[in-house]
């Protein structure tokens, strides 16, 4: 068959669009990173912290980042007159972000050790803390490290506690459960999955003080020192200011006030009930939900455009277009979304030397992934319209494009709608994966609240119910719209 001019331009635009999708976004972002002086309000230092690590860093009821780390860096920034912006990430993700120059500095209760000093430059130590073991409130069995033989221990990936347990494993038979954040790790012991947990003393002491049902049978190990880190050879100026500022706030008493505020408080926290949790945190949950919906709608809209183009490629009579589409779908279908998110957020900035916000990385992840599935649904829809329809239109002299637009697509859309609604719901649920790169959507909002309140039990029920409610509502809404469209 011969192709008309219109088809050529259709293909050309499609390819341009695909290129824009691939290259356009990062370029736009790169352009916005101006060369203004670092540390000003326009171009603040980006500092990563672990959001779920009280008392060093956590969000308070007013959604501000507080804690020993957060307060210290804020006090130093004020003392030295520079501006910072927090980019909260899981501890191990924060390390990767720092290495990838995604952030300028990291203050995250990080022990200074020789391995880390190979990759990062550390400030003067700002806090001294040792690893300590905690067990369940009711546990009377474990009184020394010897009692850990044959037991299961929870640790957080990449922490000093984890290293300490590795050393213990040389002597004892210990099974290790690895976690990404403290709250989940503690919950593992409270709920009896693990027998003991190792974490930094101040963190654990603070959590127990807040009502966590754990106890500390032993004294802390000899202390590690915590330091503020920048990537090796980068941001020397920031490091100098940190050291000077630290000396200043120690001298004027600000430092002691901060530490006392979090560790010497006698106020004992109370465990939250189901409704008290909702009442106290509804604003955060609502914000998380709107972020989830925003991510879903933006990603799905772009994915729909992109997926329709790819779906047309897949159903087109041209082998090269079908090949492009098949290759794309094969790659995306073979890639777990978590890996894709890490690739976009960590690898792309490192490879291309650009910065991406977590939101853009998140949208890109959802878009690229959903587009692959949407394209398959579009292809399926087009192919489900009988070939006779295209032949009938074409044998009346209508071009391929016109035949598709007037005859095939209107029929294909009706076939596709149910599966597109399904894909929308899947995209909405997939947003929860993006909590891993620190986007505070609904799941991450839940994690943050848990980090502050140690109430995983009730909180995950609340989060689950919100997802079910919103998805049921949206499904009902789209079925309603679908029925209207089909009757029209």
């Amino acid at each position, binding site marked *: 068959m*011969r192709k008309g001019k219109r088809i050529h331009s259709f293909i050309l635009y499609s390819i341009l669009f695909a290129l824009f999708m691939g290259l356009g976004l990062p370029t736009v972002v790169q352009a916005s990173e101006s060369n203004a002086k670092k540390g000003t309000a326009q171009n603040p230092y980006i500092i990563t912290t672990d959001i779920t690590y009280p008392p060093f860093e956590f969000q308070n009821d007013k959604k501000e980042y507080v804690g020993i780390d957060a307060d210290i860096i804020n006090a130093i920034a004020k003392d030295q007159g520079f501006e910072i912006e927090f980019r909260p990430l899981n501890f191990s993700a924060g390390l990767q972000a720092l290495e990838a120059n995604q952030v300028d500095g990291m203050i995250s209760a990080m022990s200074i050790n020789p391995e880390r000093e190979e990759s990062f430059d550390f400030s003067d130590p700002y806090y001294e803390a040792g690893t300590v073991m905690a067990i369940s409130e009711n546990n009377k069995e474990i009184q020394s490290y010897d009692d850990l033989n044959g037991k299961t221990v929870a640790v957080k990936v990449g922490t000093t506690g984890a290293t300490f347990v590795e050393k213990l494993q040389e002597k004892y038979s210990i099974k290790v459960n690895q976690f990404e954040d403290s709250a989940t790790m503690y919950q593992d012991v409270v709920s009896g999955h693990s027998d003991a947990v190792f974490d930094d003393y101040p963190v654990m002491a603070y959590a127990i003080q807040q009502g966590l049902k754990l106890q500390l049978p032993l004294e802390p190990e000899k202390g590690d020192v915590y330091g503020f880190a920048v990537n090796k050879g980068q941001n020397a100026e920031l490091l100098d200011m940190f050291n000077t500022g630290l000396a200043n706030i120690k001298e004027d008493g600000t430092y002691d006030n901060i530490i006392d505020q979090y560790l010497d408080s006698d106020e004992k926290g109370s465990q939250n009930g189901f409704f008290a949790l909702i009442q106290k945190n509804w604003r955060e949950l609502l914000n998380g939900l709107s972020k989830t919906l925003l991510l879903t709608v933006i990603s799905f809209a772009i994915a729909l455009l992109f997926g329709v183009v790819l779906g047309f490629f897949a159903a087109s009579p041209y082998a090269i277009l079908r090949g492009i589409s098949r290759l794309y779908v094969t790659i995306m279908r073979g890639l777990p979304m978590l890996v894709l998110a890490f690739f976009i957020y960590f690898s792309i900035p490192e490879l291309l030397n650009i910065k991406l916000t977590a939101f853009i990385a998140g949208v890109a992840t959802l878009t690229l992934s959903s587009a692959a599935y949407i394209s398959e649904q579009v292809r399926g829809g087009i192919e489900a319209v009988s070939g006779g329809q295209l032949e009938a239109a074409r044998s009346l002299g209508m071009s391929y494009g016109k035949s598709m637009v007037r005859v095939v697509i209107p029929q294909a859309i009706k076939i596709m709608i149910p599966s597109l609604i399904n894909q929308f719901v899947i995209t909405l649920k997939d947003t929860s994966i993006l909590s891993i790169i620190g986007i505070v959507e609904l799941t991450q909002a839940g994690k943050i609240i848990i980090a502050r309140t140690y109430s995983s039990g009730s909180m995950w029920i609340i989060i689950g119910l919100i997802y079910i409610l919103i998805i049921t509502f949206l499904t009902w809404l789209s079925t309603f719209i679908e029925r209207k469209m089909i009757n029209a």
Partner: protein
Amino acid sequence: MIEFKNVNKYYGDYHALKNINLSFKKGEVAVVIGPSGSGKSTMLRCINGLEDINDGTLMVNNIDLHANDTNLNSIRKNVGMVFQHFNLYPHMSVIENVTLAPIKVLKQDPEKARQTAEKLLKKVNMLDRKDHYPSQLSGGQQQRVAIARGLAMNPSVLLFDEPTSALDPETIDDVLDVMKKLAREGMTMIVVTHEMGFAREVGDRIIFMAEGQVIEDRDAVEFYENPHDPRAKQFLGKIIHHA
């Protein structure tokens, strides 16, 4: 106006059309018959470019169909096609089915296209159903709409690919009556069919195909009364026996 010269077509290793030489004149009604797999539908579909040929030349209205610079869309405007399964657009009403191509391809004014369509629907006795959807019509009714849809482009030739073989017996005659009316009005028609009554009544000639070849190409009545080839004899015996 249509001329096949040494045309060959292959599907991979399968030789679907073997050295076809045929020509069709304006105003002629040619009936193509033959057992299934004989290549008759393939031959028909080549005429409006739904199938490409592998070698030989195929001229339609003095345009070489196989040449690289041929715009198939402009040929198809003049070559209407009626399919076995009608292929009406299910999401459009009868009148919309008929007017779509005239408006989109011939750029006719929608009002003028509608008037023409109504005239044609009247001709095929479907005017009273013009606002119905295909799913509300019987097979025979759908096929008559499909004929009106083909006529709406005012083609110089109308191709019929087994137009009655998917129909209930009681609706076949309505479709054949319309086709006979067209034939008598002088429409150029090439009809692949097993309806020997139709062939005898309005066919100018019968082309018998078997195994991708044209075996006989003669006057309709003559062929019917005295087929030469044993395969034609056998075939005729079968379909008349079944009729």
